[in-house]
């Protein structure tokens, strides 16, 4: 599975230590979020709740709900692609835009946007007062936030690594900017982009399910969908309905995978630049085969192809070089300083706004408490990653070295990774309540329920890709037992493992907001932690504490990424990469 590497998009960043620049950009991002919270807060009260059509627990309705949820997913994907193309291209074409856009992306990756669901909902409801479209868009926006950053980063990095000769030939042929984009840049980025979109699915399902039933003050806005169905089932303590929802979700994800992503991934193989055949069999899709072979299907797609062709062939003039004077002034140091000054000032203003907004309610003591909660959640995340690694690394290696097994287990692991595990939470709550478990301990595994699979399938991929001659050499030197694990297997899969662990860790932080507080009917289980802190503040409509909690969590995530994961990744790719 050579295709796994693109999932590292976000990690191939340049530097390790947070710089003053990151701090500034951080201020900017949090400031803007505080602004949204502020705006949302101001307008929450007079909000007319548009849609209160009750969701019914009758399983007959589930296919319809599933369809609605899926449509939201699709729409979010479309928006993510549009955003990716614009954002990535902008960051690549303009050095100055790059200076600000890329660090912003980096921070946005680490901000648990789901905590803001309430305010984004308020924001969108205000855009379309009295109309359900606002709520729909808010849900779509959640899907968008789960995918867009990762996709934009992948696209940007592909643009940065467009082969020089292909770029030269495009210039030499004088393809205009538009044509060049569709002939060279978009195709070149396609495999990585599609892979990253698929990898972000888990988060997207998770978010869409969570955002279909959101409480605003005392009222709950529900959109027909699987998420709201589950919310109702929780409210009514209907375990059977939860079972139905899980079943339907399984089917939906299976269909989504088979009809959308598998064909896309198989199709995008054609855009790989390596002219030699890739190692391992290329991804297959029966649907793609059907479309490419069947005349009927081809005729069906023909109009789209013609249209796409028209759009792509729209001619724009080849760039005309501006006069030297303009270029010199525009690209001078002075302009750089002016631009940097602008960023610094706006960051400071935004940060000042965030601080003064939070300070109206909160003192230093609260900040310390929040940081304390952050450490509790940090411990939880690290312990869980360690536990998951202890379990899944040996299993993954064992499976990966047996191609027959890997072939069967791999799709299952990927499938579980995409499943919105919040659907399973009620089952866990019922169990914990029954056995009187301690929430602080037993709620924790929920955080990693969905993301642990990333560790498993990355390790499997690593073990599958392990060169056979090294294995045979190890066997011929009679390396066995612990020595074999330490010298051969673990270093061999380490780069893959780090990839998986990073994704799992990021997902766990996000999940903590949903997993540290769970309810079942009137029963409410709460663990201590930053996630619970944010969830509580959101439920109470306490904007200041939400902003503070989100800011603290972002700092934790950024520091953990920079100080631990990126270093490990750097080490892995420098010392342990096998090619």
């Amino acid at each position, binding site marked *: 599975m050579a295709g796994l590497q693109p999932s590292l998009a976000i990690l191939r960043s340049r530097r390790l230590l947070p710089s003053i620049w990151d701090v500034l950009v951080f201020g900017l991002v949090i400031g803007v979020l505080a602004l949204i919270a502020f705006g949302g807060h101001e307008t929450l009260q007079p909000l007319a709740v548009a849609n209160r059509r009750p969701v019914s627990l009758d399983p007959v309705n589930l296919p319809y709900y599933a369809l609605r949820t899926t449509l939201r997913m699709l729409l979010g994907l479309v928006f993510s692609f549009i955003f990716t193309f614009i954002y990535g291209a902008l960051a690549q074409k303009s050095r100055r835009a790059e200076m600000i856009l890329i660090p912003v992306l980096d921070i946005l990756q680490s901000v648990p946007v789901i905590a803001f669901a309430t305010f984004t909902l308020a924001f969108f409801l205000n855009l379309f007062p009295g109309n359900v479209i606002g709520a729909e868009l808010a849900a779509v926006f959640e899907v968008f936030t789960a995918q867009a950053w990762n996709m934009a980063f992948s696209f940007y990095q592909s643009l940065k690594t467009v082969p020089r000769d292909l770029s030269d*030939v495009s210039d030499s042929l004088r393809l205009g900017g538009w044509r060049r984009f569709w002939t060279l840049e978009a195709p070149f980025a396609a495999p990585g982009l599609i892979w990253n979109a698929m990898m972000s699915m888990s988060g997207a399902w998770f978010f869409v399910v969570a955002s279909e039933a959101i409480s605003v003050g005392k009222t709950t806005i529900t959109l027909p969908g699987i998420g709201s169905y589950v919310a109702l089932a929780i409210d009514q303590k209907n375990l059977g309905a939860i079972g139905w929802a899980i079943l339907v979700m399984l089917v939906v994800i299976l269909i989504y995978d088979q009809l959308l992503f598998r064909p896309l991934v198989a199709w995008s193989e054609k855009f790989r630049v390596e002219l030699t055949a890739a190692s391992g069999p290329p991804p297959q899709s029966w649907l793609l085969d059907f479309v490419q072979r069947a005349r009927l299907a081809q005729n069906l797609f023909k109009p789209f192809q013609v249209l796409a062709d028209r759009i792509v062939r729209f001619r724009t003039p080849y760039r005309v070089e501006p006069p030297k004077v303009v270029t010199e002034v525009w690209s001078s140091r002075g302009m750089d300083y002016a631009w940097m000054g602008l960023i610094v000032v706006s960051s400071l203003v935004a940060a000042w706004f965030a601080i003064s907004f939070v300070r109206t309610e909160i003192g230093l003591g609260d900040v310390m408490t929040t940081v304390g909660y952050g450490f509790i959640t940090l411990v939880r995340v690290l312990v869980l990653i360690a536990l998951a690694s202890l379990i899944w690394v040996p299993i993954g290696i064992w499976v990966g070295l047996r191609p027959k097994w890997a072939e069967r287990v791999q799709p299952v692991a990927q499938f579980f990774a995409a499943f919105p595990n919040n659907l399973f939470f009620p089952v866990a709550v019922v169990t914990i309540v029954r056995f009187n478990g301690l929430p602080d301990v037993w709620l924790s595994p929920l955080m990693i329920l969905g993301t642990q699979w990333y560790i498993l399938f990355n390790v499997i991929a690593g073990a599958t890709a392990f060169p056979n001659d090294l294995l045979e050499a190890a066997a011929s030197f009679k390396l066995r037992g612990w020595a074999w694990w330490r010298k051969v297997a673990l270093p061999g899969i380490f780069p893959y493992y780090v990839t998986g662990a990073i994704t799992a860790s990021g997902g766990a932080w996000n999940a903590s907001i949903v997993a540290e507080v769970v309810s079942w009917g009137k029963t409410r289980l709460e663990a201590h932690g930053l996630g619970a802190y944010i969830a509580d503040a959101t439920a109470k409509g306490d904007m200041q504490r939400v902003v503070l909690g989100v800011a603290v969590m972002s700092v934790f995530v950024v520091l953990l990424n920079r100080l631990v994961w990126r270093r490990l990744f750097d080490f892995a790719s420098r010392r342990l990469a096998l090619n």
Partner: protein
Amino acid sequence: MPVAAAVREAPKIGEVILDIDTVRQAYPRGPSNTLLVLDGVSLKLKAGEIVGLLGRSGSGKSSLLRIIAGLARPVDGKVTWRGQPLHGPSDGIAMVFQSFALFPWLTVLENVEIGLEPLGVPAAERRTRSLEAIDLIGLDGFENAYPKELSGGMRQRVGFARALVVHPELLLMDEPFSALDVLTAETLRTDLIELWTEGKLPLRSILIVTHNIEEAVLMCDRVIIFAANPGRIAAEVKIDLKHPRNRDDPAFRALVDDIYVRMTKPLEAAARAAQQAAAAAHGGMGIILPDVSTNDLAGLMETLFGDFDGKADLPELADDLTMEVDELFPLAETLQLFGLAEIASGDIRLTEIGRRFVESDVDQRKRIFGEQFLARVPIAALIRRVLDERPSHRAPYRRFSEELEDFMSEDAADETLSAVITWGRYAEVFAYDEQSQAFSLENPE
């Protein structure tokens, strides 16, 4: 703008179509450094001729080609194309790339057609002209194949078809055959020359960049020899042989030999200058060292000693080892720097020390190599001295790379240190730990 080149009145044979006037090119290296890659290069290209730009890598010949192609702007000097100053990629100039530069997701036909699109050629005409070009270049039947299904030679034919389909007046070729195997390259060369001499190519002139001397003599009417650091024109050789040319023709051999001598001249001069500089107090630190392996050095000396009795004609040696100038020269240069061999008028000769090296066993070889290394490579002597003086016998990489960067670009300093680390490890005069990025005297037991 969208007027096809064919409509223009074709320039007559001998008329100057491209005029390069004292062009200078430099790239920024670090905040205050610039790397000068071309200095005062002037060249006129006439209709009806094939001109070769010949030189070692780093001599700026490819930079010049990029300027002519409009892919780069010179920092100084004038380029005139068909009487107009050149701004960016122009009508009538097409380029063939060393790496073929085909879009892997387009078929052969689509790859060729795309060249016509920006010219505003209607779809039907695009199709017919592309098919003509594909036909001409011998790709019939491969129209719907994807590049990954083709062999290297076939891929480069697509590259030619794409360049020819726009009916350019000038065809630029950047080492077009160097990524191909010997047989394929020869077939492609002869095919191209045949089409050219029969007047079947819609072209007025060809400019080809190469580091293969025989290729230049085989194809060109004129060969411009480039010298490196900074890149400049060192000599020009006219080739009046009739096509098809025969490699075994004595006149052909004489031209190859002549070009070898001209190309080694700056090499000898540079080596002498380096030696003189090394003798000076702080000098010699400015020599950029090529990262060549000690195995290759020993192998070259063994070949010299065994097959050539210690002295060889460079072209013959290159032939014997099937090496190109770019591979052979750095080795020869390094041997000369170490005092293990000498280069004079196109010949290379083992020195006394060089002979002793070949006749020694492994440990002795290492000792001889180490002695020469410390005596003749100033940066090596410096590293050893610093390590000896420090009580810890350790020194970080930065200590020396910064010292070198006073004299050269950062990349060059890294390459030089990489060579020094390889040689130092072989000679066991110091050790280097990649993880801590430090030199030391300890040898792992």
